[in-house]
C-alpha cells in the first residue's frame, strides 16, 4: 500500500512550495526591475557625463582651454572603472578624466550608428566589466570623439547585493507565512482531530456515539457516523437477541430430554445424558459469548450500587430463607455508582450472594467500603469455607467445588470475567473463623 500523507503535511508542503515559487519569482522580478533601473541610471550618468564634456568642448575652441566642471566624483578616483576621454577624430587623446591615469581605454572597433554613437560592454585590462559609450562630435574648430565608461561590475554587485537582501527578507517573510500556514492548517484541521479522537473512544468502547460540536462542513459526517453506529449496534443487538432466543429456546427441549433420559435404562441413558450435558454446555457457552460480546461494546454506563444491592438482598432473603443477610452500609455507598451495566452488576452480585446463601450456616455478611474511586464489597458467609489448595481453583472456568450440587459451575467465571471487563478485580479468601469471603473491588464514581 502506498503511503498517504496526512492532510496537515499536504497543506503545509503545498503552501511551502507555493511560497518558495511565489517568493522566488518575486525576488527574481524585483532584482530584474532593480537591475533595469540601475542600468537606466548608469546610461543616464554616461549620457549626462558625455553632455557635460561636449558642453565643455563647445565652450572653448582650444583643447587647452577646456574646463571640466560638475564632473561625477567617481571620474576623479583612480582606477575606479569610471573613465572618460576626449580624442581627436583619429583617436589621439586630448583630455582624460583623472581616474584614467595609467589605464588604456578600449577601442570599440564597431561602427558608429547614424547618430554618430556607438556603445558596448567590455572588460578592461584590470578585468573590470565596463559599459563604454562613444560619440562623434563635429564642431567648427575641429572634430572630436568623446568616450565615457561606467563600471558595470559595480552595477552587478549592487544588483547582487539587492538580490541577496531581497532573498533574505523574502525568506524571513516565507518562514513567517509558512508558520502561519501551519497554524491555519492546525486550526482548520482541529475538528478533524477531535473527530478522530472521538471515533477512537467509540472504538475502545469508551463512548457510544460522537458527541462533539462540529463546524457545518463536518456536522453531516458526524450525523452519518452516528447513524451508522446506531444501525450497527442495532444489527449486533438483534443478532445477539437471536442467539439468546435460540439458546433459551433450546433449554426447554433439553430439560425434557434430560428428564426423559433419567427415566430410561441406566446404560442406554448414560450416553444420552453425556451428550445432553455437552449440548447444555454449548448452549450456555454461546449464550455467555453473546452476552459478553454485547458487554464489550460499551463500558460507559454506571449503575447505582445501593438500589441494586437492596433488590438482590430482598430476593436472596426469600430464596435462601432462613439465611440472614446482614449489610453494613456506609454513608458513602448511598451516592455511589459502579461502572457496570445494571444487568452485569446484578449478575456479579447475584452469583456471589447466591453462592454465599447456598453455603452459609445461618448468615451472610456484606461490607461496603469506598476508597479513591473504587468500592470494595466483601461478601462473607459463615459456612465451612474452602480449603486453601482449592481457593486458587475456585474461579477457574467451569470448576465446581461441590459436584453434588446443581449448577453449571459457570457462576464465578461470569463474575470474574465481568469484573475484569469493568476494570475491577475479585479475590477469594478464607479467614480462620468464617466461610468463604469474596472481595470485589469495582471502579465507581460519586453521583
Amino acid at each position, binding site marked *: 500500500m502506498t503511503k498517504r500523507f496526512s492532510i496537515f503535511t499536504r497543506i503545509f508542503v503545498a503552501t511551502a512550495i507555493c511560497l518558495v515559487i511565489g517568493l522566488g519569482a518575486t525576488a527574481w522580478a524585483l532584482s530584474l526591475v532593480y537591475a533595469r533601473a540601475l542600468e537606466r541610471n548608469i546610461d543616464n550618468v554616461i549620457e549626462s557625463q558625455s553632455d557635460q564634456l561636449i558642453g565643455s568642448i563647445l565652450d572653448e575652441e582650444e583643447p587647452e582651454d577646456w574646463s571640466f566642471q560638475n564632473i561625477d566624483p567617481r571620474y576623479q578616483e583612480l582606477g575606479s572603472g569610471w573613465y572618460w576621454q576626449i580624442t581627436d577624430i583619429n583617436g589621439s587623446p586630448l583630455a582624460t578624466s583623472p581616474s584614467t591615469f595609467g589605464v588604456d581605454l578600449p577601442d570599440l572597433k564597431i561602427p558608429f550608428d547614424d547618430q554618430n554613437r556607438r556603445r558596448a560592454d567590455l572588460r578592461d585590462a584590470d578585468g573590470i566589466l565596463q559599459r563604454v559609450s562613444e560619440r562623434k562630435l563635429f564642431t567648427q574648430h575641429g572634430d572630436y570623439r568623446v568616450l565615457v565608461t561606467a563600471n558595470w561590475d559595480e552595477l552587478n554587485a549592487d544588483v547582487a547585493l539587492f538580490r541577496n537582501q531581497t532573498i533574505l527578507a523574502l525568506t524571513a517573510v516565507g518562514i513567517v507565512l509558512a508558520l502561519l500556514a501551519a497554524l491555519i492548517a492546525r486550526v482548520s484541521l482541529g475538528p478533524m482531530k477531535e473527530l478522530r479522537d472521538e471515533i477512537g473512544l467509540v472504538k475502545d468502547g469508551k463512548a457510544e456515539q460522537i458527541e462533539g460540536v462540529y463546524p457545518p462542513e463536518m456536522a453531516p459526517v458526524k450525523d452519518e457516523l452516528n447513524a451508522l453506529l446506531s444501525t450497527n449496534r442495532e444489527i449486533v443487538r438483534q443478532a445477539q437477541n437471536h442467539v439468546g432466543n435460540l439458546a433459551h429456546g433450546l433449554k*426447554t*427441549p433439553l430439560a425434557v430430554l434430560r428428564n426423559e433420559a433419567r427415566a430410561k435404562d441406566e446404560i442406554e441413558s448414560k450416553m444420552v445424558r453425556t451428550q445432553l450435558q455437552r449440548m447444555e454446555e454449548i448452549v450456555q457457552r454461546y449464550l455467555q459469548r453473546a452476552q459478553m460480546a454485547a458487554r464489550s461494546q460499551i463500558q460507559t454506563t454506571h449503575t447505582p450500587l445501593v438500589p441494586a444491592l437492596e433488590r438482590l438482598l430482598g430476593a436472596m432473603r426469600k*430464596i435462601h430463607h432462613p439465611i440472614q443477610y446482614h449489610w453494613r452500609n456506609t454513608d458513602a455507598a448511598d451516592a455511589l455508582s459502579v461502572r457496570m451495566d445494571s444487568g452485569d452488576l446484578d449478575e456479579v452480585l447475584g452469583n456471589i450472594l447466591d453462592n454465599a446463601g447456598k453455603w452459609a450456616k445461618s448468615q451472610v455478611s456484606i461490607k461496603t467500603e469506598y476508597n479513591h474511586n473504587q468500592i470494595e464489597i466483601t461478601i462473607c458467609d459463615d459456612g465451612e469455607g474452602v480449603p486453601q489448595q482449592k481457593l486458587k481453583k475456585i474461579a477457574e472456568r467451569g470448576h465446581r467445588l461441590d459436584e453434588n450440587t446443581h449448577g453449571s459451575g459457570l457462576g464465578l467465571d461470569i463474575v470474574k470475567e465481568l469484573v475484569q471487563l469493568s476494570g475491577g478485580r475479585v479475590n477469594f479468601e478464607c479467614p480462620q473463623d468464617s466461610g468463604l469471603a469474596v472481595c470485589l473491588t469495582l471502579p465507581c464514581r460519586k453521583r
Partner: protein
Amino acid sequence: MRVLVVEDDPDLNKQLCEALEEADYVVDKAFDGEEGHFLGDTEPYDAVVLDIGLPVKDGISILEDWRREGRNMPVLLLTARDRWSDKVQGIDAGADDYVAKPFHMEEVLARLRALVRRAAGHASNAIEIGPLRLDIGASKVTLNGSAIKLTSHEYRLLSYMMHHNGKVISRTELTEHLYDQDFDRDSNTIEVFVGRLRKKLPDGLIETVRGLGYKLSAE
C-alpha cells in the same frame, strides 16, 4: 399436597406432573397462561410450578395478578432466562424461588418441598409432632423411630395434617388439597382414610373437632 403445574411444553408438563405424582403430590396442570391463571385463582394449591414463557399470558403477569388478588401460595418459577436480573424480576413479582432450565427434576422436587415446608412455617426438613416424625425429603413417616407403612393417600393426608399441625382442618380443605380438580367432592373417602390412619397411629393423635373437621394433637 396439591400442586399446579403451568408449562406450555406438553412433554415437560407431563414429565413434571409424573415426577410430582411420584413424590406423592396431587397435580393439576395447565398449558397456557390464561388457564394457569384461572386455576391458581380459583383452586387452593399448596404450591405452583410456573413457567415464565407461556402463550396467551406470561408467567410474570400471572404471578403479579395472583399476588394482587391476595393469592399467596408458594410459587416456583421455571425460567430459561437465568440472568440474575431476570430472576430478581421474577422474585420481585412475587415468586418464592426459581429453577433455571434445563433442570434436574430432583432440584425442582427439592425446592418445591422446601417452599411448601416454609409456607407452613417449618424451618427444617423434618416435622416432629410428639412421637411422629415426617421426613419431607425422603417422604417417610416414623413413629418413635420406626417407619410406618402408609399408602400414598394415607401419606398425603398425614403429611398435610403434619404441615398444618395444631390447626383445625375441615373435610373440604382436606379434599381440596389432597385430590385434583376432577375429584368428586361429595365422596366420604376422607373419613375412610382418617379411620385407617387412626389405626396406624397412637390413640388420640388425630382429634375430631365436631362440626369443624380434624386436628392433629400431640397432647
